C-alpha cells in the first residue's frame, strides 16, 4: 500500500459568503497532518471535501492525489461520534464496510484487528455495553479493516476522558503509521503529540504551527512537547 500525498486547493462559499479564501492544503504522503483552529472556520468542511462528502458549501478548486489516481475508495473516515451500528456486535461493525460493498467478510482479519486494538474479549458485544474508550477502539478496528492508505479523523477523541484519550492517541499513532492522515482537532496537546505537520486554520487561511524535533508519537510529558504545546496554544489564542 503506497500512501499518496494529497493536495487541496480552492475556496469555499456558503450561500455566497466566503467560508475560507483561496488556500492550499498539502498532506504529506504517509504522514500525520493536524488541522487546528476555531470552531466554524471550516476545518471539518476541508476534511469532508477530501472525503467526498456533502458539506453544504460550494467549493471551487481541485482536490487530488500525488499519484494522479482518484481518491474514492482509498479513504477511511472516523467522525466525531464513533457511529457504530447499535444492532451489530463489535465484529459485525468491523466487517460492515465489506458487507456494504458486497464482499465476503474476512473474519480472520477482523479477529486479528480486534485483538490488536485490545477488544478480543468484547468481540461479540454490542456497542452499548462498551465504554467510550472501547467504542473508539472498535471504531479504529473498523477503520483498519478498511485498510485505506488515506485516513481522515474528525475530532475522534474529543469525547474521551484524559487518560483514555492519551491511550487512544498512542494506539492510533501506532496503528495508522505509514498512512496519509488528516486529523482535525481542538487540542494543542493532541496535535503536538501526533503530527508531522500542524496547521492553524483562520479566516485568512492556513499557517504552520511549531512542532518538536522528535518524531511522533511524542511523549506527552517531554519538555519539548510541553513547550511546543504551550506555544501552539498561545498562537491559537492570538489567532484572529
Amino acid at each position: 500500500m503506497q500512501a499518496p500525498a494529497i493536495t487541496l486547493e480552492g475556496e469555499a462559499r456558503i450561500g455566497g459568503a466566503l467560508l475560507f479564501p483561496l488556500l492550499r492544503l498539502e498532506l504529506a504522503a504517509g504522514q500525520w497532518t493536524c488541522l487546528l483552529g476555531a470552531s466554524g472556520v471550516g476545518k471539518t468542511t476541508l476534511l469532508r471535501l477530501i472525503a467526498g462528502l456533502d458539506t453544504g458549501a460550494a467549493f471551487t478548486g481541485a482536490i487530488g492525489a500525488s499519484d494522479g489516481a482518484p481518491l474514492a475508495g482509498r479513504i477511511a473516515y472516523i467522525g466525531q461520534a464513533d457511529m457504530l451500528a447499535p444492532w451489530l456486535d463489535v465484529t459485525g461493525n468491523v466487517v460492515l464496510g465489506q458487507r456494504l460493498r458486497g464482499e465476503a467478510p474476512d473474519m480472520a482479519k477482523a479477529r486479528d484487528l480486534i485483538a490488536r486494538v485490545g477488544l478480543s474479549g468484547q468481540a461479540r458485544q454490542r456497542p452499548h455495553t462498551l465504554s467510550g474508550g472501547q467504542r473508539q477502539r472498535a471504531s479504529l478496528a473498523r477503520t483498519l479493516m478498511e485498510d485505506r492508505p488515506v485516513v481522515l479523523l474528525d475530532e475522534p477523541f474529543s469525547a474521551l476522558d484524559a487518560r483514555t484519550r492519551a491511550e487512544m492517541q498512542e494506539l492510533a499513532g501506532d496503528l495508522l503509521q505509514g498512512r496519509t492522515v488528516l486529523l482535525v482537532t481542538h487540542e494543542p496537546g493532541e496535535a503536538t503529540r501526533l503530527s508531522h505537520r500542524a496547521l492553524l486554520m483562520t479566516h485568512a487561511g492556513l499557517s504552520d504551527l511549531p512542532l518538536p524535533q522528535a518524531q511522533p508519537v511524542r511523549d506527552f510529558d517531554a519538555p519539548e512537547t510541553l513547550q511546543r504545546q504551550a506555544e501552539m496554544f498561545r498562537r491559537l489564542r492570538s489567532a484572529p
Partner: protein
Amino acid sequence: MRRGVLGVMRGAVVFAFALALWQAVVWLTGAPHFILPAPGRVAQRLWDARELVAQNALVTFAHILLGLLLGSALGVSTALQLAMSPLSRMVMRPILVFAQAVPIFALAPVITLWLGYGAASKIVTVVLIIYFPVTSAFFDGLMRTPQGHLDLARVMGGGPLRVLFRLRVPSAMPSLASGLRLAAVYAPFGAVIGEWVGASQGLGHLMLLANGRAQTDLMFACLFVLAAFTVALYYAVDRLGVGLAQRFTEPGG
C-alpha cells in the same frame, strides 16, 4: 416482569372501576335493559350465547389478523420502494395521501360491491385502513437514518441497495414498530366496518343483528369481546415493538 404484573393490576383496577360506574348509571337512571343492560346481564348473555359469539368472533379475528399481515407487508414494501426511488416518491406520495383522504366508511360499500360478502372484502378493508400508517411510519424511519452512518457508508463505498438493507432498514425498525402499533388498533375497526356493510358472519354482523332485534345485551357482549381482542392484539404488537427497539437501538439512548 415486575412492571408487567403492575400493569395487569392497574388494568384490573381501572376495569373494575369502569364496571362499577356502569352499574351505578344503570341503577341511578333506571334505564330499561334494552337501552342499557347492566354488566351482570351482559356477562350472563355472553355466557349463554358463548358458542354463537365465539363462532362469529373467530371469523372476525381471522379477518383482522390476515388483513394486518397483508397490510403490513404491503406497507413495508411500499415504504422500501419509496425510499429507493425519488421518482416513486414523486408519483406515489400524493396518491397515498389522497387515498388516505377518502373515508373508509364511504369506500366500504364499494369494496363489498366489488368483492362480495365473503372474507375478501373485510380483509381488503383492513388492509386499506392500516396501509397508510404502516407505510408512512416506516418510510419516515427510512429517511431519518443518522447522517453519520450514511457518511460512513459513502466513504466505505457501499452500494445503495446494501446500504438500504444493512443500515437504513435496521435504523428504521423503531419507526416500523410505531406504525405496527397504530395498525393493531385500527385493524379491528376496518374488519367491523366491512362486516357492517354486508356479511353473513362475524362480530360486526352479529352486533348489527342484535341491535336490530333490541338485544342490546348481546350487542354489548360482542363489543366486549372485540375490545378485549383489540387490547390483546395491541399488547402483543407492542411487545414485538419493544423487542425490535431493543434489538436495533441503544437501550437508554
